[in-house]
């Protein structure tokens, strides 16, 4: 009986599921192709304000771009530079929020292939303490109508503001060494040529930090190579974040054309490391204007032993062992310490 009931219920459910009809109402035809500024950075003293512009472009040639703007808080997603946005309408305000001080329009409509420049303002009250404050401006295209899965495109501008003064700065080095960006792992012995050196810093202060400095890499024979800038992108460790900064052992920079403008692209290429032992020395400096310059010094080491090198060493050892044994046998035979053993003849 139970089985019969289950079968009926299941059949009914499947029947209704089959009966699901996708609405054929026309979708919103607004554009969802936009160009925005990804990041804004300001230094504003308490009691002062900055008026700036936000330029948004509609890349669609046929439909207008209607955007809703709102300011949300964000933090870090992981040990990288991806923001975790607090999109919920009731999300609590963070202690580093710039929301109370940031003014942007709520709506904007941009004609096809057009652009608009919006006024924005960051005003820091006179009572505001020194530190770093940041939030994000989210530009959302309209939600579509129809279908099972609707698509919506949003862009984000991250806004960072530094309020100068005496701040609490505290970076602690947690890890330093050769690093594989793909696997996100540090290695002490590696068969694959390391392309990156990385260090992980825990930020326990009340400001974002962007350390600068260099890494000196020394091989077994004392040859040195210098990684001049360990933070070429001026990456930030947000408040409370443990951030991994990595830099190329050898950097290749090239000019590229991006939407009609020249930009510099940087990629890591082989540094031509020879197999062997390497020692790296990290020298880091950080500190806001008017605050103490703090220094972090650390050393790390790694072995680069590619497979071809390991095989070559093993083959070499086998050859050497073979010839040494042969030489010993030869000497022993010559000196009479060893006599050749005559094998018994097979013929009887």
């Amino acid at each position, binding site marked *: 009986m139970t089985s019969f009931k289950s079968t009926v219920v299941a059949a009914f459910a499947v029947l209704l599921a089959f009966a699901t009809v996708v609405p054929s109402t026309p979708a919103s035809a607004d554009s969802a192709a*936009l160009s925005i500024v990804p990041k804004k950075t300001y230094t504003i003293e308490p009691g002062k304000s900055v008026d700036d512009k936000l330029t948004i472009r509609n890349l669609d040639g046929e439909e207008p771009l209607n955007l809703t703007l709102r300011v949300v808080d964000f933090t870090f997603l992981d040990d990288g530079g991806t923001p975790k946005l607090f999109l919920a309408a009731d999300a609590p305000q963070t202690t580093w929020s710039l929301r109370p001080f940031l003014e942007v329009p709520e709506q904007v409509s941009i004609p096809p292939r057009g652009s608009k420049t919006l006024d924005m303002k960051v005003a820091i009250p006179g009572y505001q303490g020194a530190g770093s404050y940041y939030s994000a401006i989210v530009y959302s295209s309209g939600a579509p109508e129809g279908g099972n899965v609707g698509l919506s495109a949003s862009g984000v501008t991250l806004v960072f503001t530094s309020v100068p003064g005496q701040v609490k700065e505290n970076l602690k080095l947690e890890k330093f060494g050769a690093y594989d960006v793909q696997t996100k792992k540090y290695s002490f012995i590696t068969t694959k040529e390391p392309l990156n050196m990385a260090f992980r810093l825990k930020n326990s202060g009340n400001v974002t930090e962007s350390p600068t400095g260099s890494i000196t890499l020394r091989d077994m024979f004392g040859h040195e190579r210098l990684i001049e800038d360990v933070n070429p992108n001026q990456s930030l460790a947000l408040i409370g974040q443990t951030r991994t900064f990595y830099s190329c052992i050898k950097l290749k920079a090239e000019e590229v054309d*991006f939407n009609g403008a020249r930009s510099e692209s940087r990629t890591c290429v082989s540094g031509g490391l020879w197999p062997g032992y390497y020692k790296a020395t990290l020298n880091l400096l950080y500190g806001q204007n008017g605050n103490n310059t703090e220094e972090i010094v650390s050393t790390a080491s790694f072995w680069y032993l590619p497979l071809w090198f390991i095989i070559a060493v093993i083959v070499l050892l086998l050859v050497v062992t073979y010839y040494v044994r042969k030489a010993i046998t030869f000497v022993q035979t010559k000196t009479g310490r060893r006599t050749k053993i005559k094998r018994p003849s097979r013929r009887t």
Partner: protein
Amino acid sequence: MHHRLVRFHEFLFAQRHLWPEELIALLLAVLFLAAPVTEAKRFQDRSLYMQSSEPGVTTSYKVSFSYMSPNPVGSLDMQFCIDPIPYHPCVAPPGIDVSDAILTGQTGESSFTILSQTANRIILTRSPTMGISQASSYNFEGIVNPTDNGQAFSIRLKSHASGDASGAQIDFGSVRGQVASGIVIETQVPPMLVFCVAEEVSENCTTTNDNYYVDMGQLNPSTTLTAQSQMAVGTNASGGFAITANGTPLSAGTNVIDGMTTPSASTPGKNQFGINLVANTVPDIGIDPEGTWANAVASPDYGVPDFYKFVPGDVVAFSPNVSLMKKFTVSYIINSSPELRAGIYTTTISYIASGRF
């Protein structure tokens, strides 16, 4: 001559029971007393205050630190370089000019005057005076700030016994500074982030089919419903970009088809909703990312063929640095169990492209 050598040898032999102890004592004295006096130490509590941090403006600097060695100091060398490490070659920060700087005040170890100055170096001098470990500061006016707000700079500090910054250094250390503007003026073109989403888009976002919903047909426990959408993205920002997929799982009233929380294969007959950004064979759907630029990639969890996932807020594609335009095709799958309640299951997925910090 031979006679003298014999006498010297006799003398040494007679004193043989004494000299090892004396020699050891002498070595100890050198190691424990002489060495610390001559060893260079780092200045402590180092800081730089720039009255204005606007790029290229003429302003005043206050350099503060504490001397650590009690040796007589006759000169102080201040070199403005990008790299703070004292033994590395010094590259002057673009735009810096301290050649007209004036020393307007000093506290702690004082009585210095400017001996010489170039665009990126100032040497202060005084009669060598026995130092006392104390906080000191030096105020300069008429310094032209560096112009590049894209990188920090440093002032390498060294104290010397000589009056002209020659000879061995006594203490050393660096202070860090950076120009920043109320409104940052980029040295190259302004960073921009280009992003578009639709059922079909061109790689440079200039054309889309202006369709923003995906019809997946009727749910069926024995088949997988599939659909595709596309998005293109690119940025010249040095930090790169990240795209997150946001939204709620497919639902009809209170009935929900949950997203796949771990990358999993499509299994008809089981409630599943997932996406990925690569070409698949089961089911046959999707296209690998298009575009020659290698920096932009699908996230590992969304980049394995035939494995699907959907967790709201996940990063589905990213680039760690500058990336020319790249097009991603998003594949959607829905599977339903026979027990799934009837209804119109819908959701809106908002793809959010942001810069990275």
